[in-house]
């Protein structure tokens, strides 16, 4: 459905996107995961034709985007990160307007607006001006405006940014339904749970570079065959690098004054790892074993938390 091949974009001296490649199959949900400023929005802007890449190519259904932009855009629906709505108009009017702009006839746009209002649980507020909506409701309408013309490829740029958990849950539920309808979705987020829940494949992006991609389990395997330990202790001045043999068996993912997150190096027996950790030269309070999360993967790849 979508193939992105080595695209780059710079703004002055800042390389916002640097040689990024990925592909999205029909009916697949691909998550682009990265902290704020990683290059997610710039990537999505190039994919939807708002920005022209400095280098690289984008293909939609096998056709070069730059040569078939008009046709490619008809296949897409884009929900931008920032709300792109007319606040003076009602929710229904916004939906109908964007439906008309997407090429639907007036009657068809009206019908689709009704369906989407229902699906987005906004029917009872359909006649109210958008400026009277809550943040979550505006996000839902913003999302709905991208879907009037039933696009085959949906680009969702952080659709849950800045809203409360309840509103977020509603949007995720809606997107799950969208996924079930067979649309291909490119989904950017900095929420790990969303990427884990919604996406079949995930690309981790930071400083404009795609650091890794794959299914969740493929990404987890990047970390010591899936063994991650959290060690709680009073580390004081003591540094893992000073501990004898530690660096050969463990890789530090994160360290604070009282907590150390490490991944076992190579295929190891969990009990053996536990024994080695209990023998560390610091007074331990707790050692726990967990499945590595995307955050651990991200920490391993970038050295920082996703939400930093």
């Amino acid at each position, binding site marked *: 459905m979508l193939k992105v091949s080595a695209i780059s974009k710079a703004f002055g001296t800042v390389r916002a996107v640097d040689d990024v490649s990925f592909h999205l199959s029909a009916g697949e949900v691909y998550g682009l995961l990265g902290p704020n400023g990683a290059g997610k929005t710039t990537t999505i802007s190039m994919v939807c034709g*708002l920005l022209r890449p400095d280098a690289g190519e984008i293909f939609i259904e096998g056709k070069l985007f730059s040569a078939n932009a008009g046709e490619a855009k008809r296949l897409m629906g884009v929900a931008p990160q920032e709300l792109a709505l*007319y606040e003076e108009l009602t929710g229904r009017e916004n939906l109908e307007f964007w439906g008309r*702009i997407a090429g639907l006839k007036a009657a068809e746009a009206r019908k689709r607006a009704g369906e989407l209002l229902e699906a987005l649980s906004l029917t009872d507020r359909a006649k109210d001006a958008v400026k009277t909506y809550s943040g979550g409701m505006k996000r839902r309408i913003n999302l709905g405006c991208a879907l009037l013309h039933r696009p085959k490829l949906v680009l969702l740029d952080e659709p849950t940014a800045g809203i409360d958990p309840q509103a977020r849950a509603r949007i995720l539920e809606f997107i799950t339904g969208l996924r079930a309808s067979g649309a291909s979705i490119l989904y950017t987020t900095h929420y790990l749970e969303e990427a884990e829940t919604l996406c079949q494949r995930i690309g981790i992006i930071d400083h404009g570079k795609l650091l890794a991609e794959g299914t969740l389990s493929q990404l987890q395997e990047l970390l010591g065959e899936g063994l991650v330990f959290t060690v709680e202790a009073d580390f004081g001045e003591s540094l893992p690098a000073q501990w004898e043999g530690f660096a050969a068996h463990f890789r530090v993912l994160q360290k604070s004054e009282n907590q150390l997150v490490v991944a076992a190096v190579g295929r190891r027996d969990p009990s053996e790892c536990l024994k080695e950790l209990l023998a560390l030269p610091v007074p331990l309070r707790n050692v726990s074993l967990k499945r590595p999360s995307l955050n651990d993967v991200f920490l391993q790849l970038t050295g920082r938390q996703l939400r930093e």
Partner: protein
Amino acid sequence: MLEALLAKDLRRVRRNPLPWMMNLALPLVITAVMGLAFGGGGGNDNSLGRIKFAVVDEDQSPLADFLRGAANQGKAGQYLEPVFLERKAAEQQLKNDKLSAMLVIPAGFASNYLTGGKVQLELVKNPSEQIHPAVLEELLEVVVSGLNAISRNFNSEFPAWRELAESRGDYHQLSRLIEQTGNRIETARKYLFPPLVGYTNIAGPQSAAPASGGKAAPKFNLFAYMSVAMAGMFLLMLAGQGMADLHRELSRRTFERYHTLHERLLPFVAGKVLFTVVIVSMGAAIMLGGGQWLFGFRWPRPLELGLLTLAYVFFATGLMALSVAIVPDEHRANALNSVLSMILSMIGGCMLPPDQFPAFMREHLCPLMPTYWYATAGRELWWSEGSWLISAAKLAALGTLCVGLAAVLFKRRFEKGAR
């Protein structure tokens, strides 16, 4: 699609009409205030009213008689109401606000003038009045310029004049001399300074004799005269306000959203242009149509004026679209639009009649201004068809060029990632 874009914008205006209503009403209010300040009225020949002033003739020479007589004869009589008084009586009436000014022709005026000596006319203005004394002063400057020109160019005839002045008799000789001098003045007129107050230009076409069997030209009306020029300025400003909505579309990311659906930006820009044309046309209808109703005159060629105005509205909208495309920031664009509107209006003669500008400006700058094309063609329509069609075609072509350029610039801006 244009229909959907227009409906959306009009719906938005309907939801928040106050700023637009203020913009639409403002030009009319200002025209009314200015018109009333200048004493405008419906259809009078002399809408400034006759200017009453005293002539104090201390010379009592035939030349002074000639000046006295000229003050209330012919066209001057339509505007001027001289009364001939002694100095004291004139001063008293001036104090009592019964006169706008007092003109003193000093003793020895004629003989000094005819012998090449220095002469001085004295004008005492009523300080409680603003406009009438100023008009008189300007007229007197014209008279003085004329006398200077005569003195420089007709020196050879002065002995005959002096002889006449001294003999104080023979009116046959006087009339012959007047005719002779008048003919020479007529040929030299173009070298004289033009009058600073445009009475002649305002009243000229009105007083022209109608063609035989043709319809008489309508009487001059100050509000109508001002309305076209004021419309030229305010429609430009209103267009700036309308096209500023593109900035809001940019800041709200709705323009960007449109671009995710369509590669060509021209329809969106054209939609905003259409919206602005509708709004500004409403403004024009209110200004020109409402002005007609409010100030009690009738446009002699409403269809031609309407089409000319529509072309101007299109130009104004295109120009403002270009301004929005060039300047990315709304506040800076608003400032630029205001300055642009003022400069175009000023040089185009929307604020002051172009006749009053310095010669270089009047002859070389004004004719380049689209505001001038509109104001001039619009004013000409009061008396004749003039060249409105050419002006309208030029305005429409320029508007189209501006809209096309704006669309190209917007596309470049998006491609560069600047918003």
